[in-house]
C-alpha cells in the first residue's frame, strides 16, 4: 500500500483521470482485503497443505516435504475412498431429495393459509433453531439400540431391536433420517417464499378451466417454482456435502467406516485421532470443494439454458 501512496503523490500527465480510478480502488480495497484474507488465503493454504506432507513435526518446523499430488493419489487409491464417496453420494442425494419433497409438500400445504397455519409453520422451524449438538444428541438417544424411544415404539408393534447407530447396515440410514429432519425447515421456508411469488390469478384461471388440485400443482406450481427449486437443491447439496457435526456426534462415522462420508473422513484425519494429519485431510477437503464447485457450474449452465429458451 505504501507504494500506491507514493505513486499518487507523483504528478503525471493523466493526473486528472487517475483520481477517479484510485478512488474506486480505495473504496474497493476493504472488500478486496477482506476477500483475500478470509477467502483466497485459506483456499490457498488448503491447497498448499494438500500438496505437502505436513506431519506434526513439519507443521511446527515449517519445512514440509513437497509431495505434489501424492496425497491425492493416496486418497484415491485408499479402500476407504470408494466407500466414503458412495456414502457421501447416498447421504447427500437421499437427504436433499427427501428434504425437498417434504419441504415442498409442507409449503403447498401451508400456502392455503388456513387458521393456525402461521403457528404451525413456525413450529416446523424448530429444527433450524436448535443448536446442532442438541438435535444430534437427541437423535442419538432416540435411536439408541437398547433404550431408545424409537426401538421401544417399534417393539410395541412387534418389531425386534434395530441397532440404528451400531449396525453397519443402518447407521448411514439413521444419520440420513436425522439430517432430513434438520433440512426440512430450510426447504420449507424458501419454497414457501417461492410459492407466494406465483400470481394467484393463474390458479383462478386454471380453476375456471376446470383443472383439479393435482393438475394445478403439476401444471402451475411445479413449473413456476423451478428457479426457486433449483437454487434450493443447489444450496441443499452444498450444505449436505459438508455435513460433519451431525454424523460425528451420532456415530463418529462408524461403526468402523459404515457412515463415513468424505467430510467425516477429512475431519477425522485432521482432528479425530491422536495425531493430526493435515495434508490428507486438506486433500479430501479440496475434493469436496471441487464436487460442490462442479455442482455450481452445472446449476449456472442449466440456468443459462433456461434463460435462452
Amino acid at each position, binding site marked *: 500500500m505504501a507504494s500506491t501512496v507514493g505513486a499518487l503523490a507523483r504528478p503525471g500527465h493523466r493526473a486528472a483521470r487517475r*483520481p477517479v480510478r484510485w478512488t474506486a480502488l480505495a473504496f474497493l480495497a476493504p472488500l478486496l482485503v477482506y476477500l483475500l484474507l478470509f477467502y483466497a488465503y485459506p483456499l490457498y493454504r488448503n491447497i498448499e497443505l494438500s500438496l505437502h506432507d505436513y506431519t*506434526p513435526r513439519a507443521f511446527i518446523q515449517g519445512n514440509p516435504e513437497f509431495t505434489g499430488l501424492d496425497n491425492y493419489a493416496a486418497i484415491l487409491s485408499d479402500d476407504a475412498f470408494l466407500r466414503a464417496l458412495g456414502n457421501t453420494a447416498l447421504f447427500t442425494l437421499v437427504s436433499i431429495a427427501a428434504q425437498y419433497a417434504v419441504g415442498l409438500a409442507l409449503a403447498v400445504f401451508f400456502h392455503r393459509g388456513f387458521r393456525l397455519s402461521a403457528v404451525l409453520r413456525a413450529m416446523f422451524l424448530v429444527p433450524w433453531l436448535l443448536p446442532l449438538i442438541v438435535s444430534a444428541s437427541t437423535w442419538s438417544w432416540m435411536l439408541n439400540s437398547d433404550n431408545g424411544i424409537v426401538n421401544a415404539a417399534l417393539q410395541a408393534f412387534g418389531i425386534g431391536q434395530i441397532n440404528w*447407530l451400531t449396525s453397519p447396515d443402518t447407521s448411514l440410514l439413521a444419520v440420513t433420517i436425522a439430517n432430513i429432519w434438520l433440512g426440512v425447515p430450510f426447504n420449507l421456508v424458501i419454497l414457501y417464499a417461492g410459492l407466494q411469488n406465483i400470481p394467484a390469478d393463474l390458479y383462478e384461471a386454471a380453476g375456471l378451466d376446470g383443472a383439479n388440485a393435482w393438475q394445478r400443482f403439476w401444471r402451475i406450481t411445479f413449473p413456476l417454482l423451478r428457479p426457486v427449486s433449483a437454487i434450493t437443491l443447489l444450496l441443499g447439496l452444498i450444505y449436505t456435502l459438508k455435513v460433519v457435526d451431525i454424523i460425528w456426534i451420532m456415530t463418529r462415522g462408524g461403526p468402523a467406516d459404515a457412515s463415513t462420508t468424505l467430510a467425516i473422513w477429512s475431519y477425522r484425519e485432521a482432528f479425530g485421532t491422536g495425531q*493430526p494429519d493435515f495434508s490428507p485431510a486438506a486433500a479430501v477437503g479440496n475434493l469436496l470443494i471441487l464436487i460442490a464447485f462442479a455442482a455450481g457450474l452445472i446449476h449456472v449452465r442449466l440456468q443459462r439454458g433456461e434463460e435462452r429458451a
Partner: protein
Amino acid sequence: MNRTSAKAAVLGTAVLALTACASTPPQGATTAEAKGGAYTWWDPYPQHDAGSAWAKRVGACGQQAGVTIQRTAYDTTALTNQALLAGQEGNAPDVILLDNPAVSTLADAGMLTAMSDFGLEVNRFDKNLITAGELDGKTYGIPIGANTLALYYNKKILDAAGVDPETIKDWVSLNAALKKVKEAGKKPITFAAIGTEEGSFQFLPWFWGAGAQLTQLDSPQAVEALQLWSSWLKDGLAPNSVISNSQNTTWEEFLTGEFAFAENGTWQIDSAAKAGFPTGIVQIPAKAGGTAPTPTGGEFITVPVQKDTKRYDVTKKILECMTTPEGLVETGTTFAYYIPSTADGQQAILAKEPSLKPWVAAVQSAKGRTSDNLGTKYPKISEALWTGVQKALSGAASPADALKEAQAQAKQATGN
C-alpha cells in the same frame, strides 16, 4: 469527489491495511512482555476455573518459584491443536500439561525440551508411567499423576445374583459371573467401544491381558480378546449400544443401577461413592488369571522449547513444586482421580486415603500406550485397532478378519 478527499481515502485505506498487516508483531510483543513478569501455563482442565483449588495450587507453585503464573485451560483435543499452532508461531507457553499419548507426537515435532536439558531428575517417577514421556532415550515430560481402568461393580446386583467379586480371577470366572447376573435378570456389563481413542483405551486391558502386543494386531491372542468382547454382545451380556458409547455414557448407564459391572476409570471414584447403591472395584483380570495390564491415562507436564533458555531455571522450580510427594498427593486429592506417580507419593496418599489401595495397585501394574517404543506410531495403530473392534462388534467382520484388516491398516499407516 475532489482530489484531497480521494487522497485521504487512499491514505486511510493504506493505514488500515498496514495496521492489519502489522497487528501480529505488537501481539507477539505483548506476549513477550507478559512472559517477562509471568510464566504461561496451559492445561486441559477447563472445568477448574480461576477460583478453583487447582488454579490456586498452580498459582502457589509459581509464587514459590518467585513468579506469577498465567493459566489458560483448553479442552484436551483443542489443547493439542493450540500447542501445534503455538509451536509453529514460536510463542509456546512455558508449561503445557499434555495428555500422555500426545507427548511423543509433540516431542518428535521438536517443540518440547527434554527434562535432562534443564537438569530435572526423573528417576523417582514410576518406570511404567514415565515411559509414555520417553522418545529415543530422552524424557520429555513427567506425569503429574496417573489414572487407569478397573471394573466397578454394583454390590446390590452381585449380592442378589449370588456373585462374589473376589472369585473373579480370570476370564472364565468373569464370564461365569456375568452369566449368573444375566440369569438373575439384570444387565451384566457395559463398556465403551466408541470409534475414538476411548475405544482403544477400553479394549487394551483385554488385549494386553490376553498376551497380545500392539505391534501385531492380528495375533491369535488379540483375536481371543476381541472374541471375548464380541461374545458378550452376541450372548446379550453387554448392550449393543457399547459400539457408540463413550466412557461417560457407559458410566451414566452404570449409575442407573441396571448394570452389574462397568469398565471405567479412576476419575469416577467420587461419583461411584455418591451412587445410589454400594459399589466396589475389581481389577480387570488377564485371560489366564492375575491382573491385566491396563493403559495409563493422565497428563504429563511438558516444557515447550523457549528462545530465552534462562526461563528454564524457574520452570524447573515450578515442575519440582508440582511433583513433591506432598504436591502429588495434593494434586491427587484436588482432582479426586489422580494416583501419584512416584513411590513416595503413593505411600503418602495411601496414608491419607487407605481406600485407594486397589487403584494404586492398578496404576502400578499399568502400562503406557506409547511405551514399547511405539511413540508416534501409537495413534495410527490405535486408530486401526478401534476400527477393527468396531467392525467385529457390529458384525461387519469376524474378529479374526477385522484384526487382519486392522494390522494391514496399521502397517500401512506406520510405514513398516
